[in-house]
């Protein structure tokens, strides 16, 4: 029992803390998840707008130079499209 407790404590102590992603990394991951090429882990030049219905539009540029637009509807539906 004592050995099990020690093993449990060691497991908890040795577990690495969760790494928090930045918004730029988050957007790049989302673009890649939708099957688009991004060319890196993080985007740049992020702009965000929201209309009266609660629909959000995010634009960002990937390291490969392609600018993408992510549209999130008020119901949570998401669409990604390349702008250039």
């Amino acid at each position: 029992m004592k050995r099990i407790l020690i093993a449990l404590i060691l497991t908890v102590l040795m577990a690495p803390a969760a790494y928090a992603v930045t918004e730029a990394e988050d957007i790049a991951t989302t673009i890649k998840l939708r099957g688009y090429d991004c060319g890196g882990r993080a985007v740049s030049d992020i702009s965000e707008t929201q209309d009266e219905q609660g629909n959000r539009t995010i634009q960002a540029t990937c390291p490969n130079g392609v600018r993408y637009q992510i549209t999130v509807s008020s119901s949570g539906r998401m669409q990604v499209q390349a702008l250039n």
Partner: protein
Amino acid sequence: MLVMPLYAADGADGMKQDAVAAPATTKLSKVQVRNTMKNKHMAKKTLPEHVDAVDLKVLEQRLKKTDAIGFFTKLAIRNDIIDLMDKIKKYRKNSKLKVKMKEVRASFDGLLLKIIALLEGDASLSRDLYVGRESIWESLLEVKA
């Protein structure tokens, strides 16, 4: 998960205790003891699955709260899960679920692998999702049309 080695340890101890008690009994009861041990062993083998089923809500909350993936990625995953559930509902409605089971399972496995790969910054959640994959699959199939 952490629970599994504990059950394994209990099982090993239980087997030893039964083996010590066996010589004092008759030949017929030896068989009974062996059967009991087999049943006990099988019951213990199924226990972690029940534990996983209980933990599903917790896993869902951990996935929502983890910092290893961001808001938009979580939203994209949520969309994928809803799409998969809609697919299951559609096949069930058309009585095609049994025929399309392999295809749906492949979609589920792909989605789960994607989530596990995304959770590289939260290894414990990633591992727990992998361990609980069968329970997650069963709960997905239980969703009513």
